[in-house]
């Protein structure tokens, strides 16, 4: 989870105003204290007449806001993770078997490594065996083991080891674990993980800011070979860092024209496609969750309409005592806004909680708590509550005073 600092200013001012509004009459009474009455707290106190119905309307909007908030926080986390991975992998290429749909299914001849090292456009070369395995004891789903060499750091990030010792390609029975995976598994340096009865001691923790931080263990090539069953003369892929990102295409042309049966892919492009998919998914999710919040809005409209119908004679008396039609309508809209504010706040808090629970329960699910999605869903609730209050407000405003007093 990532927390983003909320800038001081508007939110706190709004909060102070709400608290002030409350102190002006929301919670007073029976204490012998006379407090000034204004249209704001008059409207809010009207909501307390039918506490059950008001609570249901609030929960209706809160559920919609919760849904939107939690989904936005999760989507933001996923997008941010992909975006960081794109930055990390910018300029990287992967040589794999032509047509492989998965890095674990690819086979590349190890002799290609030396040939590629001699290419002047290539800065570093890292042969890798990728294998997905379940931890013994079923602590979680699959983890990815990458058997590699010390050149891995040159390809990914020179300072990728955060804690513990540097990766040693000759040390079997050792593993360097991604920092997020270590957090999820509650693993620390010196702990032992077992995969298919092979014990791996954690000697280091790496951090690349890419998604592999939450999925991967780096192990010696020989351990990965044992677990994958690959013969000695092959690896899964060869990861390459070009001398500069603009050399990537010439490397691709070189490999694909000189070595039959291999292809070069750009992980950055794959991730960028992932970003596009996420953007589409975000739109779909927003539409679906908007339905929930619209239903909440209908709940507010229904509550307000019932309230107007019940209080018709009272509305007539307000008009008889000098309230204008717009005063009456404004008061009704304020009641709807009151429901929207409380529902929005509850929904936002529940949304943050739900996304954090999801982050804990679902492996590799990043959540990013930022002010933008929180304010988006909160203000959506308020906007919708205003819309929901308009029809009941117009209805209340338009009733002729005498008809209202007669309850017509």
């Amino acid at each position, binding site marked *: 989870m990532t927390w983003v600092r909320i800038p001081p200013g508007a939110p706190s001012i709004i909060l102070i105003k709400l608290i002030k509004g409350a102190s002006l*009459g929301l919670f007073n*009474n*029976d*204490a*012998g*204290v*006379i407090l*000034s*009455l*204004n*249209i704001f707290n*008059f409207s809010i*106190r*009207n909501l*307390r*007449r039918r506490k059950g119905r008001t609570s249901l309307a609030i929960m209706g909007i809160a559920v919609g806001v919760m849904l939107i908030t939690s989904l936005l926080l999760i989507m933001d986390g996923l997008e941010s993770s992909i975006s960081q991975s794109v930055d990390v992998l910018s300029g990287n290429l992967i040589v794999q078997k032509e047509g492989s749909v998965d890095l674990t299914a690819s086979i590349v001849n190890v002799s290609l490594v030396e040939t590629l090292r001699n290419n002047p456009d290539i800065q570093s070369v890292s042969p890798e065996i990728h294998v997905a395995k379940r931890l013994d004891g079923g602590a979680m789903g699959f983890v990815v083991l990458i058997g590699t060499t010390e050149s891995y750091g040159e390809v990914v990030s020179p300072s990728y080891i955060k804690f513990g010792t540097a990766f040693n390609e000759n040390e079997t029975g050792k593993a360097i674990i991604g920092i997020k995976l270590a957090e999820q598994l509650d693993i620390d340096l010196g702990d032992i993980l077992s995969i298919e009865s092979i014990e791996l001691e954690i000697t280091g923790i790496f951090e690349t800011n890419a998604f592999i931080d939450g999925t991967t263990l780096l192990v010696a090539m020989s351990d990965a070979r044992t677990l994958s069953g690959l013969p000695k003369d092959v690896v899964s892929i060869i990861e390459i860092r070009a001398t500069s990102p603009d050399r990537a295409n010439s490397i691709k042309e070189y490999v694909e024209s000189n070595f039959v049966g291999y292809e070069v892919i750009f992980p950055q492009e794959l991730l960028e496609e992932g970003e596009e998919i996420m953007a589409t998914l975000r739109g779909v999710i927003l539409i679906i969750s908007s339905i929930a919040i619209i239903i909440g809005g209908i709940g507010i409209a229904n509550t307000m309409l019932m309230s107007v119908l019940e209080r018709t*004679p*009272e509305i*007539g*008396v*307000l*008009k*008889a*005592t*000098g*309230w*204008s*039609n717009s*005063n009456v309508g404004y008061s009704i809209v304020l009641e709807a806004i009151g429901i929207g504010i409380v529902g929005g706040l509850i929904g936002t808090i529940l949304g943050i909680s739900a996304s954090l629970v999801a982050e804990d329960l679902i492996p590799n699910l990043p959540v990013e708590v930022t002010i933008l999605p929180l304010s988006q869903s909160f203000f959506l609730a308020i906007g919708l509550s205003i819309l929901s209050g308009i029809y009941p407000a117009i209805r209340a405003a338009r009733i*002729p*005073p*005498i008809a209202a*007093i007669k309850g017509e």
Partner: protein
Amino acid sequence: MDIIKVKDLTKEYRFGETTVKALNGVNMNVVQKSLLSFVGPSGSGKTTLLNMIGGLDRPSSGQVEMDGINLSSSPENELHKIRRSKVGFIFQHFYLIPTLTAFENILVPTIPVSGQAFEERAKILLSYVSMEKRQNHRPSQLSGGEQQRVAICRALINEPEVLLCDEITGELDTETGEQILRLLKKINQEKGTTILLVTHDEKIAANSDRTVTLSDGRIVSDKTN
């Protein structure tokens, strides 16, 4: 000086093909600071006439003038200002807001124009009707008589020139009703507020300066007591 002038006032209601005349050419004037009662059988047009005088309802023809302002031709966005500044209504059913205290209920008419001066006036009014100790009680905690006294204060908060009272003792026992009437008389005499009462009670009518009797939408009797 006449504060209210009613000229050829007619109010018709249509029920399908049938037209019912609730008021049929009513003419009358009301002198400032007077206490006037409207009496007559149910359906005679008393309440309709009161509502027309207060600008709550519009006539089918004719006009009502209050303090020189023609209410019948005033648009709604002007009428509410006239109701706020010149008229106070008191109803049979009190219509107090249940979530507000007695003090706050008195202030309801002033909410759109709220200010400290009204709060001071509300305290004075509560004291005037001997309700100062009940100011923080909600309507459900007050007796019928107390609720009506709060409603009277609410009607007086804007210091209206005319107080319109529709069957205000209808939900009260005899003794409480008499207390309320004594209070109205006191308001009329001490504050000089013109008071128009709709009532079925001949005793109440006998206590007013003038009694106007309506029947079938017409004034059939108008006598000074």
